[in-house]
């Protein structure tokens, strides 16, 4: 009986917790004059997709959410590929081989998790500028990947250490070299950890704001968070419709990932958190 009461209380709290997000969705579907009507209406009726059309298709300079969506997709997927491969290749020898300098390298990489992104903002900008990478995809992808790399090495090394060595030993006796073992045995066995890391990297790249805010100054290259933040400035405060449509669109990919791979995300947070 007490358990039922607690469940009911938690359900009420959870619904309350989701209300702000629901309000964004509801607003994005309302007709412009209905948005600011008081008392607040929680059912968007008559509903319209007009704001979505405006932010996705409008050719105005500021509302290029469609283009920003594409940019964010390219940057996030590129980051995932680099993070997963670079972290796995680094974590493999750190977990499985003995060589001089191993412990120092591991300590350096994990220690770098303590370097705050805000602290290296200016020099990273100087470096990116010198490479000619401002307002380019690589200028977003590579620094973004570097931000997640340390965590990736930490996570994958832990996972590799937990795998049994027998398969690798057998393969080595059959004449496989280190690269074969890495590609054919270790990576396939590590799919859960690689998946968790991939989702983590996708999430950080998709949601990062500070770095793209300064590394991009061409509107065509803005990723979603930057485009949304500037969209806010482009409209008067009463025009919440397009802003909320943009916000909803930007939340969709991770919502889908979250619904499909709920357990893996939670697992990734847990692994990265408690043992970090």
């Amino acid at each position: 009986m007490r358990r039922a009461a607690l469940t009911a209380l938690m359900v009420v709290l959870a619904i309350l917790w989701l209300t702000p997000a629901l309000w964004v969705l509801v607003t994005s579907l309302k007709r412009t004059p209905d948005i600011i009507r008081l008392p607040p209406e929680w059912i968007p009726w008559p509903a319209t997709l007009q704001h979505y059309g405006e932010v996705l298709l409008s050719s105005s300079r500021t509302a290029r959410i469609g283009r920003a969506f594409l940019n964010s997709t390219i940057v996030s997927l590129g980051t995932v590929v680099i993070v997963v491969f670079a972290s796995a290749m680094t974590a493999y020898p750190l977990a499985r081989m003995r060589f001089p300098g191993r412990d120092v390298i591991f300590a350096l990489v994990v220690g770098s998790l303590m370097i705050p992104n805000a602290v290296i903002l200016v020099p990273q900008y100087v470096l990116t500028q010198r490479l000619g990478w401002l307002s380019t995809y690589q200028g977003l992808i590579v620094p973004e990947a570097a931000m997640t790399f340390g965590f990736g090495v930490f996570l994958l090394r832990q996972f590799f250490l937990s795998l049994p060595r027998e398969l690798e030993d057998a393969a080595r006796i059959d004449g496989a070299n280190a690269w074969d073992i890495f590609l054919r045995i270790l990576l396939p066995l590590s799919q859960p950890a690689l998946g968790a890391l991939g989702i983590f990297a996708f999430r950080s790249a998709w949601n990062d704001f500070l770095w793209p805010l300064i590394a991009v100054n061409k509107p065509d290259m803005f990723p979603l968070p930057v485009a949304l933040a500037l969209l806010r400035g482009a409209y008067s405060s009463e025009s919440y419709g397009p802003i909320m449509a943009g916000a909803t669109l930007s939340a969709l990919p991770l919502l889908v990932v979250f619904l499909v791979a709920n357990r893996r995300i939670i697992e990734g947070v847990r692994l990265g958190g408690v043992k970090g």
Partner: protein
Amino acid sequence: MAAADRGVKHRAPRRLRRGALTPYLFLVPGLLLFAAFRLYPLLDGLRLSFTNARLGRPQYAWVGLANYQRLLDDTRFHASLWNTAFYTVASTLPILAIPLVLAVALNRGVALKTFLRSAFFFPFTLSVVTVGLTWLWLLDPVVGPFNYYLRTLGLPTRSWLADPYTAMWAIILTTVWWVTGYYLVIYLAGLQDIPGELYEAAALDGASGWRSFWSITLPLLRPVLLFVFVTHIIGSFQIFGQVFVLTQGGPGDATRTVVQHLYETAFQNFFHFGSASAMAWVLFGVIVVFSLLQFRLLRGHTEY
């Protein structure tokens, strides 16, 4: 790489040397990325902090400690330090306690646990900009629902984000909504590691739920609590996105945090890279001190 390996296999001395090289070959891409975009910028930032470098000016000179000296007189920087400290201190209790209470409740065998956990976690999948825009709209002084419902309840309303006394609290509220789910998941993992027998034994001895919480849950959760505490503190020192979206540091200087001020100094108002780098290193110093403190505390734990 595999083809090259096979090519030299018949020469024993070469193979030995090659075997010794293998780990380093694996390390090359990752360490290159790491050295170029983490280590080098960190050190280059220190160098820049002793120069008068500016955005778009190729020539600059060594100015010694001038940037650091200027920080001593920069009242806006002092305000930003104070605001950051205020934010950090004021947000710590809610961000430590709210997820803990929710996690303990979810761990009491409630139904729908996965759904509930996901509901609280959802905001953490959003970007800081989306979260900021959400609360900007909710807290809109005229047409926002927050003030409307306060009014219907007969409670006082105000322009939460435009009032210097409430703006920072609005930012804290926004942050709590954003990150609670993340810490909730971490607490839940910690709670699951506590053996259930302890609670059963305590219940047999007649301990109340509160007593079990204080005498079993909290002490055994100490490493997790410390992790959450330190993660939150280090994150708080760097708070930026919420401020940028909700208040731009205003009203006046009321919510201008260190990173917001750093951003403005380097990229918005003065384009002064040297001065911004000095701020960054002061911030880094503070963060390092707190991180070292963390290690001391954690080591203290593993000893008993």
